[in-house]
């Protein structure tokens, strides 16, 4: 092992002490900062140098590692803290059967009723309608931007889509409230415009740019060699897309749709403002509805900490967390599957 040490020094400038990095930053004059002297070395350690730089490297590595796992820590913390407030209640006092099958959400009654079915139906119908609108257009746009458009057009479209995705949800909600609402009343001759239709359209417009971006990434993940091979056989661009690119990007595209669904499912402010927020089992797009997320947002402010009502809202939070978690997990598995198939 000590041979190595000798090797190290002899390959550097002879004047330098062993272990000192030869070409260290010009800003630092020669001297102690990097001066790992032979005296400080522990013979039984690796042939690595142990100097200030080495110590800093260790400290930095540990700090960065902590930063690296912070995302995991936070996801766990989120679950722990909402479970802390809501899980005990959900498992012991809340009638889960009633929770999932009754549309009666009357948390402030003298004998409160916690049936979330109407809220789940509201979320499902709004998200469903939004996806009906968003999925075709988002995939179409992704294919156009990713496969047909070139050069400046492509860059411009990408930037536009990115800007659309950046619009805050509260602004979307405001648009639903103040622009879509009168528009729907006038166009369909209905008494209220704050309905599943309104929220669905708004949510569709919101989710589409995000889905477009993810779907385009999925298309980009298909290696160019696939396209070139197909082109060499005389296929047109559309044939390449339909028979080569889309089948190969299939998993990624489904993941894009899933992430869009997750986004719609968890959207709060826009749905709160545009859906009418009425507890109601929606039977047509012109009914008002109420979403799970919006219920938490509108009721949490009025509840006393620790009360039943407060806890049931955290239970809704747990439900939302778990559903989005599963959706994200599925999307991740799909993307991995696609990658594996290709390599």
């Amino acid at each position, binding site marked *: 092992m000590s041979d190595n040490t000798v090797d190290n020094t002899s390959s550097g400038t002879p004047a330098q002490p062993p272990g000192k990095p030869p070409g260290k930053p010009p800003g630092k004059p020669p001297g102690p900062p990097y001066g790992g002297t032979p005296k400080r070395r522990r013979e039984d350690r690796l042939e690595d140098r142990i100097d200030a730089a080495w110590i800093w490297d260790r400290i930095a590595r540990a700090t960065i590692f902590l930063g690296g796992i912070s995302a995991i820590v936070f*996801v766990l913390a989120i679950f722990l803290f909402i479970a802390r407030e809501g899980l005990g209640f959900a498992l012991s006092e809340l009638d889960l059967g009633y929770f999932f099958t009754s549309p009666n959400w009357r948390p402030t009654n003298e004998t409160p009723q916690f049936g979330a079915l109407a809220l789940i139906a509201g979320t499902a119908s709004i998200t469903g309608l939004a996806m009906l609108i968003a999925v075709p257009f988002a995939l179409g746009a992704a294919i156009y931007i990713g496969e047909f458009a070139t050069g400046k057009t492509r860059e411009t479209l990408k930037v536009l*889509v990115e800007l659309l995705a950046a619009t805050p949800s509260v602004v979307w909600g405001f648009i639903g409230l103040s622009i879509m609402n009168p528009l729907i009343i006038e166009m369909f001759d209905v008494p209220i415009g704050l309905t599943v239709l309104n929220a669905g359209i708004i949510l569709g417009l919101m989710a589409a740019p995000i889905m477009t971006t993810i779907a385009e990434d999925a298309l980009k993940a298909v290696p160019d060699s696939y396209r070139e091979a197909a082109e060499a056989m005389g296929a047109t661009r559309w044939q390449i897309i339909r028979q080569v690119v889309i089948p190969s990007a299939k998993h990624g595209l489904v993941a894009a749709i899933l992430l869009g669904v997750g986004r719609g499912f968890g959207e709060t402010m826009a749905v709160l403002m545009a859906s009418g927020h009425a507890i109601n089992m929606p039977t047509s797009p012109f009914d008002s509805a109420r979403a799970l*997320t919006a219920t938490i947002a509108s009721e949490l402010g009025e509840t006393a900490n620790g009360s039943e009502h407060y806890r049931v809202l955290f239970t809704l*939070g747990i439900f*939302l967390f778990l559903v989005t978690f599963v959706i994200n997990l599925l999307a991740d598995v799909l993307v991995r599957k696609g990658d594996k198939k290709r390599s």
Partner: protein
Amino acid sequence: MSDAIKNGFQAAPLDRRNQRNQRVFRLLFLTMTVILIVPVVVILALLTIKGAPALSWGFFTESPKNGLTEGGIFPALVGTLWLVAVALVASVPLGVAAAIYLSEYAKDNLLTRLINLAIINLAGVPSIVHALFGLGAFVLFFKFGTSILAASLTLAIMTLPVVIVSTREALQSVPQSFRLACWSLGATRWQTIRKVVLPNSISGILTGVILEVSRTVGETAPIMFTGAVFFLPFLPQSVMDQTMAMSLHLYNVATQVPDIPEALPFGVALSLILMVLLLNSVSIAFRVHLRRVKKW
């Protein structure tokens, strides 16, 4: 004979059909893209037309008056600045560290996969669940109360994925040969990161930070119960104070205040979206510029 020569260079019927299909589908997808973008542009134009009359110098420098039905948005603007600043202080170092880990240290193993999954989840968890977390953790458990600190920390965790993902991209765009050159000079990993990788990706990181700011400005649900309030007659003095915020202010003037002059909420909406779009445009312009000047 001459016919055969003439037709020899013409497309066969099958080719022509394929070409036609190609044109049809290209047009179809172009239409879809346009349909996706145009309504939004129209809506933004409407917002601008209806909101512009409300904008004036006083609108940005005055407090709301008469139960929010008059006056400006000054305290909300200041409050949003506070929230963004504190959130950045918390999330940028953490996010950059996470990105450095993923780009420079992480191997392709289970832990890395878990981290990536956690990042996707952090971005995918509904904003209202982040709000519940902020309330349960920062307001109640750590006893920060409803304050800028609690709201900003909630926002910081929520927007962490934006910093991580964009910083990781910036770090990964530094060529591997730069690192190899540095290592072969005997530098440690950290020296390489600090002296070579970070300086070469700092502008890319900044792009991500601007993007994060724009996200933070627009978020409403996470701050509703953790620190932002309906109205405050004074400006926040420390991170333990409550504050007004642009996004929540828009929600309030749009839904909570009866008999409000129509232009006022439009004005608030317009200023909010202008802020966000401006930040995003700066970020995008920065990125395009970077791509152009980069020498490798």
